[in-house]
């Protein structure tokens, strides 16, 4: 309880400390101390701005997920580049309504961002009731396959990471 | 404390403002008391400064203990002391008046009022060009805020013009400053002055361009002919105590012109053009201001145009450019500032009691206090129109006397005609406001004691200046003398002139430095400059203030 009070978000604090050290690009004692102070202090100041976020239950899965997304980003870029560089091939863009399974805000955000960053898709709208996500695909052949693909590659891992 | 005297006129209002802002809006009476007390203290400070400057010494205050020309210095000479004192006296009347109720028509009146005073005092005291810009901005922004105090259509409309024009003015100010810096490499006024005197013809022409542009900017603030159009509606629509305080605002522009003309551009070839601009612009302002006086259909507008006439008078006097005219103009300036302030306050009192008609020059209901207000109006009108026996007449006489043979030809008729126009308009206004009232019982509010004392405080200046005409004009004479002897200024303020070093970055390195980590350096020039600089540094950072103050004021002689 007490720790919660003074360390409301350990993950955030850690991120902040790392960020600080990255920023100052130094590992001197003074900087670490300062970083610690900030890492503890800033969450205390900003906690009032947090809406409840889910805890990351499986950090390792998260790591895998991140790696996969990074890989997908590279792939996505190559794909899009090909599309861009070969004007002969006319793409078939399309809108898809993707039914959302996760309901947590962070999870939805993560999913939407992932979709945007990965092959040929951009999330364009989250419905008011958070039931579906509208996606614009640059080159779409099979709507259902795409939905399935997204679910399997991204949404399910996200569900697992946050256990929601 | 006495060694910090110079900065007190800036810090006192600032700290007062901060205290007022922190205390919140809890107690109006506390705010008023604090504001009045602080302004009263400023009056005392002003007197102390006058006393100090009266000795003829120039004192300086090196902020951050960085000596001129490197740091910013505040400089007290006769003129700046007079302006600070004048501001304080004017402000005291205004704040008294405002404390009767005008201050609660919007938020934070007193705090902004104090910041306005801070800006004004800073502008009068600073010896640094860029710092002058900063204080100009403070006083302008404060004036914008004060102008909008209480809101209303007319104010907003006039305010928009005022703000936009001044913003353009500020942009031009920066351009002018830039050119002057580019030509002289310094920002301290005295330093700039002595460097301008030594510039090559080429750079001197460049400095001239900056100087002329700067004068345009100051002329905008001072409101002379092609640039005065913002003034009538702005002054006429401002809340009374603010309009009264604004009487000093045009004088800031004039002050700046006087300062740069005598200290910075005294040796510049541009001075001829500057003086011609001021002279003709001033004359034209008298002419059109006088026409506006005749045309005014509202007492506030009338007073605003009277301010314009006085501005024109002062400007043309500054364009005459000799000791006598400057002395006369300073005398006139003191008088006209205070009386214009008094008139704005009076207009409000009169308007208040006339119901719907307000200050418009139409028949209206009877005044509550016709004798009292009428008497006060009479005094103010006589003073402002330049009719004996009050100070306006003396000021005008001094100015007319100061004009030389050829200047007379233009100045006298204009001045006399403008005086006549003022007289005609004021007599008409007075007879409409105080005499031509409808039958029936007066029903307006009685003027508050604070309002009356505020107006009286300013009004008393008119007879007082007559009684003290001799000492005052002695002071203004000495002031003008001092202004025209910038050597004293320069000698007390600055170390002996060292030739400025070349830019450390040599020409070749400019182009080559793009790729290599270590750009080429012309070592010879580097050593030169470090030598030159180190000799400067030796005098720059003084060990302690006691020494600073003493060395600059030149001790008691």
């Amino acid at each position: 309880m007490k720790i919660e009070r003074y360390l409301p978000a350990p993950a955030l604090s850690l991120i902040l400390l790392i960020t600080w050290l990255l920023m100052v690009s130094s590992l001197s004692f003074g900087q670490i101390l300062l970083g610690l102070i900030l890492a503890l202090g800033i969450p205390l100041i900003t906690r009032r701005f947090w809406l409840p976020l889910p805890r990351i239950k499986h950090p390792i899965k998260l790591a895998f997920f991140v790696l996969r997304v990074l890989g997908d980003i590279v792939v996505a870029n190559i794909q899009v580049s090909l599309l861009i560089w070969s004007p002969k091939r006319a793409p078939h863009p399309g809108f898809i309504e993707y039914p959302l399974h996760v309901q947590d805000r962070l999870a939805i955000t993560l999913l939407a961002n992932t979709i945007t960053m990965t092959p040929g898709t951009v999330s364009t709208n989250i419905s008011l009731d958070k039931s579906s996500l509208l996606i614009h695909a640059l080159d779409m052949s099979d709507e259902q396959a795409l939905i399935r693909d997204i679910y399997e590659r991204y949404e399910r891992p996200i569900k697992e990471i946050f256990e929601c | 404390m006495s060694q910090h005297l110079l900065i007190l006129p800036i810090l006192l209002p600032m700290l007062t403002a901060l205290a007022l802002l922190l205390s919140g809006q809890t107690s109006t009476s506390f705010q008023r008391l604090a504001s009045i007390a602080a302004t009263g203290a400023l009056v005392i400070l002003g007197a102390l400064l006058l006393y100090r400057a009266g000795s003829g010494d120039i004192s300086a205050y090196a902020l951050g203990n960085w000596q001129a020309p490197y740091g910013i210095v505040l400089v007290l000479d006769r003129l700046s002391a007079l302006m600070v004192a004048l501001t304080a006296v004017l402000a005291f009347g205004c704040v008294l008046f405002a404390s009767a109720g005008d201050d609660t028509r919007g938020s934070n009146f007193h705090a902004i009022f104090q910041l306005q005073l801070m800006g004004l005092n800073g502008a009068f005291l600073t010896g640094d060009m860029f710092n002058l810009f900063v204080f100009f901005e403070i006083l302008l922004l404060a004036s914008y805020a004060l102008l909008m105090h209480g809101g209303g259509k007319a104010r907003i409309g006039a305010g928009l013009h005022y703000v936009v024009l001044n913003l353009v003015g500020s942009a031009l100010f920066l351009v002018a400053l830039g050119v002057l810096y580019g030509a002289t490499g310094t920002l301290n006024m005295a330093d700039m002055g002595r460097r301008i005197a030594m510039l090559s013809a080429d750079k001197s022409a460049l400095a001239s361009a900056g100087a002329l542009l700067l004068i345009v900017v100051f002329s905008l603030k001072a409101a002379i002919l092609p640039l005065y159009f913002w003034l009538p509606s702005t002054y006429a629509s401002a809340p009374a105590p603010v309009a009264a305080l604004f009487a000093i605002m045009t004088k800031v522009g004039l002050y700046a012109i006087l300062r740069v003309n005598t200290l910075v551009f005294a040796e510049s070839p541009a001075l001829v053009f500057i003086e011609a601009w001021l002279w003709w612009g001033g004359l034209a302002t008298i002419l059109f201001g006088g026409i506006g006086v005749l045309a005014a259909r509202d007492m506030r507008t009338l007073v605003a145009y009277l301010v314009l006439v006085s501005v024109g008078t002062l400007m043309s006097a500054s364009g005459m450019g000799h000791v006598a005219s400057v002395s006369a103009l300073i005398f006139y300036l003191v008088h006209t500032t205070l009386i214009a302030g008094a008139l704005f306050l009076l207009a409000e009192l009169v308007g208040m009691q006339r119901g719907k008609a307000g200050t418009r020059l139409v028949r209206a209901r009877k005044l509550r206090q016709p004798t009292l207000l009428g008497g006060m109006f009479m005094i103010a009108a006589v003073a402002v129109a330049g009719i004996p026996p009050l100070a306006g007449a003396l000021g005008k006489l001094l100015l007319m006397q100061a004009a030389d043979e050829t200047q007379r030809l233009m100045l006298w008729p204009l001045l006399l005609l403008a005086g006549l126009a003022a007289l005609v308009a004021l007599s008409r206004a007075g007879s409409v406001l105080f005499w031509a009232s409808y039958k029936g019982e007066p029903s307006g509010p009685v003027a508050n004691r604070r309002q009356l004392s505020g107006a009286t405080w300013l009004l008393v200046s008119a007879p007082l200046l007559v009684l003290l005409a001799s000492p005052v004009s002695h002071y203004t004479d000495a002031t003008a003398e001092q202004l025209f002897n910038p050597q004293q200024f320069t000698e007390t303020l600055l170390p002996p002139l060292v030739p400025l070093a070349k830019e450390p970055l040599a020409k070749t390195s400019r182009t080559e430095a793009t790729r290599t980590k270590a750009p080429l350096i012309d070592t010879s020039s580097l050593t030169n400059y470090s030598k030159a600089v180190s000799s400067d540094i030796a005098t720059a950072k003084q060990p302690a203030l006691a020494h600073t103050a003493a060395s600059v004021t030149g001790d008691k002689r």
Partner: protein
Amino acid sequence: MSLLWIPLLTLAGTLVPVLTETLGRRRSTLATMALPLLALLIVLTHTSALFSGDVISMQVGWLPQLGLDLAFRLDGLTLLFALLILGIGCLILFYAGYYLSPQEKDSRFFSFMLLFMTAMIGIVMADNLLLLWLFWELTSLLSFLLIGFWSHRSDARRGARMALTVTSAGGLALLAGILLIGNIVGSFAMQDVLAAGDQLRGSSYYPLIVTLVLLGAFTKSAQFPFHFWLPHAMAAPTPVSAYLHSSTMVKAGIFLLARLHPALGDTSLWAISLTMVGLATLVYGAWFALLQRDLKGILAFSTVSHLGLVVLLLGLGSPLAIVAALFHILNHALFKAALFMSAGVIDHETGTRDIRRLGGLWTLMPLTGTLTLLAGAAMAGIPPFNGFLSKEMLLTEAVTTQLFGGLSVVIPLLVLIGASLSVAYSLRLIYGVFFAPRSPKDNALKESATGENEEETSIQAHDPPKGMYLPGMGLAVLCLLVGLFPMTLAAPLINSASLAVQGLHTPVFHFALWHGLNLPLMMSLIAIGLGVLLLWRHSRLSAVASLLTPKDATMIFERATIRIVKAALWVTLRLENGSLQRYQALLLLSAIGMTALGLSRLGLLTGDAGLQPVDGLAILGAIVMIFGAVSSALAHRWRLVSLLMLSVVGLMVSLTFVRFSAPDLAFTQLSVEVASMILLILALFFLPQRPPRWVSPRRLMRDIILATAFGLIIAALNYAVLTRETLSIANFFLEQSVPGGGGTNVVNVILVDFRGFDTLGEITVLTLAGLGTYKLLNRLRLFKPSGNLEGIRWSRHRYPLILEVVAQLILPLALLVSVYIFLRGHNEPGGGFIAGLITAVALLLQYMARGYEWTSNRLPISYPVVAVIGLLIAVTTGLGSWVFGYPFLTSSFGYFDIPLIGKTELATALLFDIGVYLAVVGATLMILVNLGSITTIHRPTLKASQQNAPAEGKK
């Protein structure tokens, strides 16, 4: 020194009526008279000396720079006038005590009268021309107040204004003349000026001086064609007319002519001007006096005429003529004051001053009648009254003068006509009021009646109380006595006055009723005869006159005034058409013109420092910038586009700063850019976005030319400076930054140390802007569109989910970054200002993402307080140096070895920077959040305690 007491006593007298107000009218009046009487006594003690031609003077320095001294003199001329002013003044005061109705505010009236008396005394005693002028103008002013005393009457107000305008205009001309005199003589002291006659007459300015001085004198003394104000001044209470407009003020002009006679007189210009104007006035005034119906009107025009007579005499200029002039001044004052008093009595008793409604009063008011008869006879110039004596002298002089050469005969002829008219109106006055049968049946008369009560008021008419007729009676008797014993009663006085005016030229003269049967006597008789004839045929005369009468001078004056005011209004409105564009154009034109003037002196625009080569990146950057700026201007009708283009320019400006080695500027520009962007978007929402109508091509052309010219000037200036080597004080900062300021980032050290005072001012400006906007937003109500310009309704996603989440993530990161930027500021690019803006913008993102209410609930901070605390920290840091005896803002820093951490620098500048940080955060949020909140229910409004003030915006 006793001289000073004379004006001082009368001045002190102004207080008496106020102080004695409670004692009752009678006692108050008597008390008021006491001090002037004392002053008169002092004057009289000097008579013996003055009769022998001495001049007594005194002087106190006042404003030596101006040549203005408090100098008074007493000589014969002064004595003559002082006796009139004080003597007649006292009688009139006494009379006024009875004249004014009990309910009138007499204390003010008497105060004004005494003040006026002081001013008059000042004029005649002044031994300095400037001092004389001061008093001169004062009399104009007081006459304004006295004429307008019955301010509820429109004729009184008009008359007062007219008198003031005319006499002040003259006064201003006089001032110019006096200044010219002073300039030539080198002094304003009277004896110097009077002694410098030859010098003045020899000066090339002489004609101008004479013109100016005469303008002053003629307007004051109501000479043709400036006479018209005087009849209108009759709206004043009768004591005022008696005092100001017969015996004193109107004589000031004549006094001046007499006074300056030694200095300016004795030239043909002087003589001819005075003679012609005097003659014209004499005849003109007399003619119109005869045609007047109003008693006071008759007296006013007769005054004009008599003043003309005196001017004529002064113009003729022979020693005897001047003696005659001085004598007539005395005579006229005596009989005219008496006549005015009687007119006042008649008005008072009958309620009317219309001569056609009056008549037959002799039986009812015998004493008044006697008084009028005596004084009227004097005015008509009938022997044995004093008026006869001076008129005889005039006729003598007129006959003998050779001024106009062959045409000189015109003068006696015109004088004769004037004298006849004078007889006629005098007799008409006496006859019409006291002896003529009354004709109440006259309808036309009733219509034009001036009196309020139309009823037969004269039935109750009777002689007034003693106090009211005694003063007049005294004067009338004096007229007779002077006529009978001129050598005893008048000669010494006139002699000494003449000594003062013409010194050694003063002739030996002999006043007598009988000089033998000579031409002047014949003319006198003819005049009397003609006068009677004119009176007899008066009704026919008026009919003819009404045809001949030119347009009323009043109307001309009034119309001219109105026309001038209208013209002034027209000019003013044309000039100030309320168009900001025009005002800006003028400002820009001035700036362009003046700068071009400076630049034109530059031999070659390109300086000797030469040019650096251009690289492709720079060219591309320049193109983008130019593109952004131009399209922002062209797209001004599509505001969002214009804004986006502006944003491009902003970005490019920051990149330019990077390109040219100004990291701090780049950072600042970037962070300010965002804040401005948000600000402008808020503005976009609240300002109508419909494109304005198209502008005329001419206007467009003007704007484009102006803009181009300005751009060219700026570019030329910039180029000129850039191609010249700048030798600046910069090296000092580079050298001193580390040892003196303790920081390696010189720009930051300048900001917080070398020029920390600027920075203090800068954050004050920022805070002030916040406070100012708070004022503007107070109780602002705005129309809030429900959809965009194209009619699309706003999205229903108030707070887009994804933005919410990201905002939440960014906040801690942004705070971290701002701490980082803040801490490195002193040594590397960064600092409190940039850090403050980052914090502010990050918090703004919260407001954008989560809304005002949600965010402010979690951030219950008053932004003004934050800003103020920031300012306070900065100031306090500055003040801290006082403790150590250093000036404000003196910085101090040191390197400390802290265990485990190592060498660390601690600087007061950092503290100062914290102040900057807080001020920036507070002020920025104060501005933007307040603006954002006006569409919410949390709009800024004044607190309830302040709402008792009347609703704003009414003014």
